[in-house]
């Protein structure tokens, strides 16, 4: 029993999403007026609901929809294990960590934690802009649960790690973003609990700093401490964790070795988020009454295999299947490509390149293929949204949700020195020469 650090049994957390509230997942906030109005309408339960913690009153309970952010999750973590928790956005990772760090309470089940916990759901929590770096170290340390003596002992180490040196007595509001993040992480990194719960904190700063953070994390892991680590950085999960939990729609989907876990997650991703194939029905489209519609979009690699993962700069094809309802004399086909952050990257269209398609008879099914010579963009998931129109006419159909292609850094394009989001958007293979001048 004593070698168990965390035990989770049947843990669940529900949120009520009221139909009459437009406040999203956490939409339990009501005004007193609502409650008093309820009371006026004769139901005493509205008043007693002042004491109900979920703020939902019985009288309009039928309007409430229930969302299980985490549902029936059970697992056990042994002392000294480093466990990665992965899953898509909204899979319940953060809610799970919030329950384990006692920020929010579960609806069902229980969790047992054996040992002193430190949780790190965000760097810089409680930093006050008006206070100096020095003051913030003390304050933040206390917030994270460090003792004053402990903070004093580690103070120099923290300052050194954060590389803020002479600015230590400057209010942090004058810090650059990088300095701020470094200081914030430095404090957090010096927390020494027996069990550490970390949420995606490595996703800050430039790549050099990220590397440093990762190093610190593996130090922590190496010291035999128990770590629960949520990340979207598969490389980090692979490197740091010996075990991996995959969550999907709030439920445990996979629990096992981290390599298999990452693999499982990526496959899940391929099937769901980064779907290489998209099927559409006529009812699903907005322009159902138009002259035709895009029935299927798929991404094929050079050999014609279906695949959502393509190397940066490697040619691939987008195959677009269109069903024609009414005769189209001249068809214009196009596709827009968006970066992972939503920046429009490419605007492809046949009429721009003098390509003519058509005429097509009513009832025909046509498969169009766009062959791209390779996208020299930074690795990431890019969205491709095809559309088609009649020449000189309005767009007939457009796939707004798009298909997703994952560009991977491979071959010539995998140096981290070149791949720095924020510094550039593209990767280019160019020739470099030098010659000695007389």
């Amino acid at each position, binding site marked *: 029993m*004593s070698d168990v650090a965390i035990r989770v049994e049947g843990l669940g957390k529900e*949120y009520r999403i009221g139909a009459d509230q437009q406040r999203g997942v*956490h939409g*339990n*906030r*009501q*005004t*007193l*007026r609502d*409650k008093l109005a309820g009371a006026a309408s004769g139901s005493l339960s509205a008043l007693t609901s*002042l*004491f109900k*913690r*979920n*703020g939902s009153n019985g009288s309009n309970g039928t309007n409430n929809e229930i969302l299980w952010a985490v549902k029936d999750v059970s697992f056990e973590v042994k002392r000294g294990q480093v466990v990665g928790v992965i899953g898509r956005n909204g899979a319940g990772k953060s809610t799970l960590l*919030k*329950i*384990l*760090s*006692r*920020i*929010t*309470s*579960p*609806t*069902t*089940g*229980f*969790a*047992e*934690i*054996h*040992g*002193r*916990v430190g*949780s790190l*759901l*965000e760097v810089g*929590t*409680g930093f*006050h802009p*008006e*206070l100096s770096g020095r*003051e913030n170290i*003390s*304050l933040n340390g*206390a*917030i*994270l*649960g460090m*003792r*004053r003596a*402990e903070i004093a002992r580690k103070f120099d180490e923290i300052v050194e790690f954060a590389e803020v040196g002479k600015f230590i007595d400057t209010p942090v509001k004058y810090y650059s973003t990088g300095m701020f993040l470094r200081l914030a992480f430095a404090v957090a990194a010096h927390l*020494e609990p*027996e069990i550490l719960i970390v949420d995606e904190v490595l996703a800050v700063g430039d790549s050099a700093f990220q590397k440093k953070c990762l190093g610190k994390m593996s130090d922590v892991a190496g010291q035999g401490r128990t770590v629960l680590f949520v990340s979207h950085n598969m490389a980090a999960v692979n490197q740091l964790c010996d075990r991996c939990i995959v969550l999907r729609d709030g439920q445990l989907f996979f629990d096992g070795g981290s390599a298999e876990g990452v693999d499982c997650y990526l496959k899940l991703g391929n099937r769901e988020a980064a779907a290489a194939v998209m099927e559409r029905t006529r009812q699903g489209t907005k322009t159902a009454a138009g002259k035709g519609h895009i029935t299927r979009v798929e991404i094929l690699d050079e050999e014609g295999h279906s695949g959502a993962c393509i190397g940066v700069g490697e040619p691939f094809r987008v195959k677009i299947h269109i069903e024609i309802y009414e005769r189209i004399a001249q068809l214009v086909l196009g596709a827009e490509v968006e970066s992972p952050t939503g920046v429009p990257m490419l605007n492809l269209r046949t009429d721009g390149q003098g390509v003519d398609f058509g005429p097509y008879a009513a009832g025909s099914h046509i498969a169009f293929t766009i062959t791209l010579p390779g996208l020299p963009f930074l690795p990431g998931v890019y969205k491709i949204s095809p559309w088609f129109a009649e020449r000189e006419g309005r767009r007939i159909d457009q796939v707004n949700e798009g298909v997703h292609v994952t560009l991977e850094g491979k071959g010539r394009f995998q140096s981290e020195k070149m791949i720095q989001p924020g510094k550039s958007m593209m990767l280019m293979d160019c020739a470099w020469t030098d010659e000695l001048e007389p």
Partner: protein
Amino acid sequence: MSDTTTSVSNHARIVETTVPAPATPVLRIEPSHGWISLKLGELWEYRELLFFLTWRDITVRYKQTLLGATWAIIQPFFTMVVFSLFFGKLAKMPSDGVPYPIFCFAALVPWQFFANGLSQSANSIVGSASLIRKVYFPRLAIPISTILGGVVDFALAFGVLLGMMVYFGIWPTVNCLFLPLFLLLALTTSLGVGLWLTALNVQFRDVRHIVPFFTQFWMFATPIAYPSSLVLDKYGSIWHALYGLNPMVGVVEGFRWALLGSGASPGPMIGVSALAAVVLLITGAFYFRRMEKTFADLV
């Protein structure tokens, strides 16, 4: 609520040691039902955080203001000037035999402490949303530290009060030894009401709009501009004691009695005030703890 056993969540105290303790503390996290314990022991474990939060509130309060800590004095001082003009000079309000300005200021100093504590603590949890959503610690630490931070403002205004006493030639009697008790009473009241309001404010943001009115009404229900002897003369001693159900009556009367020697020794009324304040504090703390679990989801 089907289970009848009182399940107390987060049951274990966390033993803070750098060396792993021989018996590892076990923390059990489970759904909680009904009214839950205050867990003052845990709050005590986090006393350093309480200290740092208070210290932060004090340090930050007057940063980047032109007049700095003078603000702690300006507010009660100018209220005193206005009251002296309108109630003292124009309305000729009786003032228990001491000059009206100091009669009024001796009440305004604890009142400001109470009123500021109230409005700041009412917003404290909502204002600390980022903390509440990301870190665990006893949530009681936030309103408590907010109110403790007000003690510094009180001390500054109290300094002015002492200066005024010198100016008017009033020397405190031995009664002033009771002063800390009255300050404690003000603190208790402020925290009690503050806990109710801050917990309500998380769920109903109306509270923040109500608080200014609320304090204004309360101010006139408290003998600041007038002596409580008016109530005594008009309605008799029983009503006068019941008037003490407003704990701030006890505080204000106590301050005047301890510092200025004005009024009678506030016997039974203080008892009533103290009782009312303690009831407010205990119910406030339990209500706060009951609602606490939802804070992270609602702020």
